[in-house]
């Protein structure tokens, strides 16, 4: 599963961190989301779909 995090769109709302804490974090300056695992396994699919659904700026896409 490939996750596209568009850092140009990202506004560091942090909803992805709440939805998928093993995958996303905010950077030290609080400005942008970062990915802790580049290509997460299937076990994270539900969390990742939730992260994509919650993102206020649609910055997360899941590509199978």
């Amino acid at each position: 599963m490939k996750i596209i995090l568009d850092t140009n769109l990202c506004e560091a709302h942090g909803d992805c961190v709440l939805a998928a804490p093993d995958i996303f974090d905010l950077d030290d300056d609080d400005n942008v989301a970062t990915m802790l695992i580049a290509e997460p396994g299937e076990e994270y699919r539900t969390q990742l779909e939730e992260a994509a659904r919650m993102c206020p700026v649609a910055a997360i896409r899941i590509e199978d």
Partner: protein
Amino acid sequence: MPGGRHPHRGLIATVEQIVIVGGGLAGHRAAEALRKAGFGGAVVLVGDETHRPYDRPPLSKQLLAGSMTADETLYRVSADANVTWTLGQAAVSLDRDRQVVRLADGTEVPYDGLMITTGRRARSWPELPELEGFHVLRSLDDAAGFREAVSSTSRVVIVGAGFIGCEVAATLRGLGVTEVAVVDIAPFPMPVLGAEVGKRAITLHEQNGVRFFLSTSVSGFAGQGGRVSGVDLADGRSLPADVVLLALGSAPNTEWLEGSGLELLDGAVLCDEHCVAVGTSNIVAAGDVAAWPHPQAGRPICIEHWAIARDMAATAATNLLADPGGRASFATVPTFWSDQYSVKMKSAGLLAVADRFEVVEEDTEKPSLVVEAFRGQELIGAIVFNKNKAIIGYQRALAGQLAGAR
């Protein structure tokens, strides 16, 4: 949500067509959630605007600033959502006995399940004089009209220092509009955030060249040659104005439900904790048109936040498809954000019930701020400036409290 081989047991056995009335965020998310839950029947979305569902937060910020186009505010709709769009047509009445929604042109749209997501509209000024130059900001068309009306030499008066008023003031200053004044009867901008945040918001805006006229109200408007020329204040002062933005909050779009027998609370559709309209079994509501019993409020309330529309629409959709016994409660930590200048403001929790706000961390240089909100001794929320990680911690703690209270 019922799963497995019988996704539509019970009530939903006869559901062939679900009608969503209201084409904003809640309507858009409702359609997506119905499909995600496996609903294979027809989904009809009725919207009074001609635009497909679009995102409103950028209207007072990126769209007004010109860094985002109208097309870029449209939500991406996946092809397999298979939605029948009925746009540019307002619903004018609801006949629950016959299970039809009647549209402005007389068309009747039958439904088995109905989702009410008609949202709210900007409040105007009572008995507004017939002059050019007045604007509200709620829709894409409002935003286009307002942007068209404002130039860098405009004298702009914003009536209302809520979130829209403050965001627009910040955006206009960013655009180089020299004269931006904000009037409000409250002593602070964004009063729901409390006095501590309010004081800092005044400083932030004044440092950026906005003039505030607080603790006073508008007594009238002056006009010249058919255009507004000034705003008169109750304290006797008078502000010259070419453009006036009325940022006076919103009113629910529920006139079309008059006579339907649905129960309204301050104009909003009264729902139970499952987002089901009280007294019905096949009608749900979501977003800021709905009043629902938030566990921490002690009474049904309407929360006009983007994230509430996002999440409530999903719960309402799955509950509409579920057996009455299998419905999920909608209980969530309200969250909110606002961008003004280089400050990202965020809140978590039901701030409306707070009786005390306390500054726990502040850096006036950055600037950053953490304010906690209490009801008695109980922490019920927090507000931050430029502390995105900190608010996540509060969101988690508050969600834990909410789960524990249920």
